[in-house]
């Protein structure tokens, strides 16, 4: 019998032990754990019983590498069964090493190849703006190394110029970019007209405050520093 329930942050380590086989991405997965928890526990207006609600906030996990933390949080919040976690990566499992939105309830985009989520998020934002629904936020999670993909900056530039205030990007910064971002990656966003804040990516209250700090009339970037 499938187990679908709402669990606590303290349950996440236990859930993660069920997701084995993709250890090469452990560092990537664990880097996002606290950000994902805060998003689903305190920020996103999403409901596992209505994952396609038009009024929901849109969360796009662009950094699809190492999705174990994502699956654990989705299981803890009741989007997927805890029982499904043990099949991670198997042929009969819906949980792959990169998420597939057609297979996993609550997953907005299929990801894996880097640099795709943010441009799509800009399109989602433009659509919501054009159709006039003021409610939903659009939040996109990227990695600091993922930002090396040039497609991200096509999106960063346009979102800043168009002042897409509905859009928030959270950069999980585990210093995995080989050549780094001198002065902090948030400067690249601020140069294009975004508001930006850098916080401790393991501090839940700081993260919640950072997400609440969106200016409203321009896009917002939260750099969540989690150490290397």
């Amino acid at each position: 019998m499938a187990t679908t329930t709402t669990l606590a942050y303290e349950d996440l380590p236990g859930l993660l032990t069920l997701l084995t086989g993709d250890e090469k991405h452990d560092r990537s997965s664990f880097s996002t754990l606290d950000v994902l928890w805060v998003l689903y526990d305190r920020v996103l207006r999403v409901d596992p019983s209505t994952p396609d609600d038009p009024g929901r906030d849109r969360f796009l996990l662009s950094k699809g590498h190492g999705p174990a933390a994502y699956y654990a949080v989705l299981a803890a919040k009741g989007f997927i069964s805890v029982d499904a976690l043990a099949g991670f990566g198997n042929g009969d499992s819906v949980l792959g090493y990169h998420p597939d939105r057609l297979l996993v309830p609550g997953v907005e985009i299929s990801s894996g190849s880097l640099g795709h989520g943010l441009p799509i998020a800009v399109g989602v934002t433009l659509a919501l703006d054009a159709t006039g629904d003021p409610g939903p936020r659009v939040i996109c999670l990227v990695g600091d190394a993922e930002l090396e993909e040039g497609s991200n900056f096509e999106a960063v530039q346009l979102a800043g110029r168009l002042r897409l205030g509905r859009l928030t990007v959270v950069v999980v910064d585990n210093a995995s970019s080989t050549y780094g971002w001198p002065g902090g990656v948030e400067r690249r966003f601020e140069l294009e007209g975004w508001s930006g804040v850098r916080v401790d990516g393991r501090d839940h209250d700081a993260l919640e405050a950072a997400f609440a700090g969106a200016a409203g009339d321009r896009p917002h970037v939260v750099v969540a520093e989690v150490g290397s």
Partner: protein
Amino acid sequence: MITMRQRFYEVVAELLDSDPRVAVVLAEIGAGELQPHPRLFNVGIREQLMVGVAAGLAFEGLRPFVHSYAPFLVERPFEQVKLDLVHQDVGAVLVSTGASYDGARSGRTHQSPGDVALLRALPGWTIHVPGHPDEVERFVRRAAGGDDNVYVRLSEEVNAAGVEADGMVVVRSGSDGAPLVVAVGPTLAPTLAATAELDVSVAYLATVRPFDADGLRAALHGPDVVLVEPYLAGTSAAEIAAALVDRPHRLLALGVANEEFRRYGTGPEHRALHGLDAAGIRGSIAAFLSDSPHPGWGSTPHPLPATISA
């Protein structure tokens, strides 16, 4: 005659006003041809973003038309086409201009003979290669009502008149058992001229994916098939082989050579260079039907036009 491209701008502008689902995404190309509209998004010279934005619009239920020169619409953002549209299971209408060599004066950077072959490598696409502005309008209006992925390939080359019917349309019948020449899109005009004095049937095809296998089988009454495509030669050869898997047949696949000639000039000059003008098509078909080996590309089967000198 109005160009295919101008007809597209007229129709899509009307659709923006009449259909609240329709949106347009541009990367500068075409921006000067359309009036500002709340659902017209010019993303600047950012073609990866152009396709990603279109996907995001489709996620929210809009019907995005994405338009640029073929190399910048299909080749440069090909991974976005593959993943942001196909893999995400959302649809957009890609409308290209420039075709294989309309932009010959601009050189290789603005030529895209491989666009249909690339999209052929992805599942689920409807691919239209119209030969006349009237067909452009029909395909664009039809695509506006769907949710699937559609490619409409505009060209400066046009036939004398549009063909209203869908699928494989026999436009000239030869004797029973005569070879069948299938002309795709704007190759119909030179194909009709090339075969005017030959005992062949000529069929027209403007929608190449899904491929009308039943139409081909119904139109073919002999063993010989000639395929004339305005893009990379042989792009639809596998579809013909599959359609005729139980029939002994011979196929001559004409199209744009898989070579870079490094020549400027005009579209018509390049059409001749690739053997796709009437004289080139006639020569290739004659050689095929006389059982002579097709000369094949790489051996310059047709002399370069005088205006293109080495």
